[in-house]
């Protein structure tokens, strides 16, 4: 079955980010979304440690380790950037000032629950800012493979892993589809043209619904 690369998923997520938006991208894969910001749109990226107006990574050797993102990677400051302390940074988040948070997921449930911080109760727990982000941002989107490495569904009826937040996810961008959470149900908005509804349903752990036409999930060649 054909599927999108990580870059393809990130590209698709980036297309939905509005001009003027304030956006927080989770550590790791979600950071890739910034690379595909459509030209002509001004997006301001927030980093939990206290930066608004984060730019791309500097060239190797030009890192300033006092200008890092939440993943502790070196970044740059765009013109108009600002610096603030950690309580102010999370006041932005908790106070509903961040328009969009894009996170990864272990599981997303059809009721919008998200599990993305811990698998079972093994190992050292580490939560970071994910719980703050999913309750604070105005809109929460997830970018993820449609299934786990072992082929298990990541879109499920109820999360089995510890929750990050309850009923918080609005949209999921997967390697196969774009799925919204609407009134406790998964609604398929777009799918890869080459993959049938039934094929996607077969690798999804909850019922997929349709509400209106299902668009074609097409990303630029080479991604």
């Amino acid at each position: 079955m054909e599927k999108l690369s990580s870059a393809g998923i990130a590209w698709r997520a980036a297309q939905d980010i509005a001009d003027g938006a304030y956006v927080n991208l989770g550590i790791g894969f979600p950071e890739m979304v910034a690379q595909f910001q459509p030209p002509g749109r001004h997006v301001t990226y927030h980093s939990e440690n206290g930066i608004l107006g984060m730019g791309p990574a500097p060239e190797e050797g030009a890192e300033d380790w006092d200008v890092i993102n939440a993943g502790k990677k070196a970044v740059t400051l765009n013109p108009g950037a600002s610096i603030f302390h950690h309580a102010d940074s999370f006041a932005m988040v908790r106070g509903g000032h961040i328009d969009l948070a894009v996170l990864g997921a272990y599981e997303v449930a059809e009721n919008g629950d998200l599990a993305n911080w811990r698998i079972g109760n093994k190992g050292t727990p580490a939560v970071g800012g994910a719980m703050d982000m999913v309750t604070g941002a105005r809109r929460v989107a997830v970018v993820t493979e449609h299934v786990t490495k072992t082929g298990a569904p990541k879109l499920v009826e109820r999360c089995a892993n510890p929750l990050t937040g309850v009923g918080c996810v609005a949209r999921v961008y997967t390697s196969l589809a774009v799925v919204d959470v609407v009134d406790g149900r998964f609604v398929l908005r777009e799918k890869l043209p080459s993959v049938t509804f039934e094929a996607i349903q077969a690798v999804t752990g909850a019922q997929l619904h349709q509400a209106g036409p299902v668009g074609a999930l097409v990303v630029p060649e080479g991604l």
Partner: protein
Amino acid sequence: MDKSVASLEAVVADIADGAVVMIAGFGGSGIPVELIHALVARYRATGHPGGLTVVNNNAGTGSVGIAAMLDAGMVAKVICSFPRSSQPQAFQRRYEAGEVELELVPQGTLAERIRAGGAGIPAFYTATGVGTELAEGKPLEEFEGRMYLRERWLKADVALVKGELGDAHGNLTYRLAARNFAPIMAMAAGCTIAQVSRLVKPGEIAPEQVVTPGIFVARLVEVPEPAQEEVLVRAGEAF
């Protein structure tokens, strides 16, 4: 992204009847006189916006700024800590006539309620006011052997603030102690409108020196050489 607006008229054009309007400033310092007067002018011309709730530390002085709003009759309620001033007539008259409601809040609690509104904290505990008549109706709770009362967040539809420098992204600095309530009010309002003495290019304010990050500002207008309310009041000016 350019949040700058060309005129004072345009920048206050969509403030609605009944809005909760936070107005920065303490005494005359930091009062966005031109924004307020643009709003009063609009009310005089159109009858809107009326029935406003004004949040400020004080309740106007003389015949300018918030006092001019009160005189114009566009204010239904004032939330403040100290509705007295050297020239309190505008508020006094409306209050004694029962035309303006007053919610009195201790100054630090007012600041913290506003900050809580901006920070997504619906309620918090403070010792301020415990055992006084301003504690009436507020839940009490003991923490570590001391009594505290619970206060609620305070949010607004609109905040009017006065910055010194501002850029098109909405980043602001403030002149000296004119900072006072502006940074927290900018956080607590759905739509924050700033007047700035000088509009600069993004990047001209060093990232470490931005006081209010642009995320908290919806639009801004340049007002070079703005009036200082204290100076207007001492000169006996009226709007």
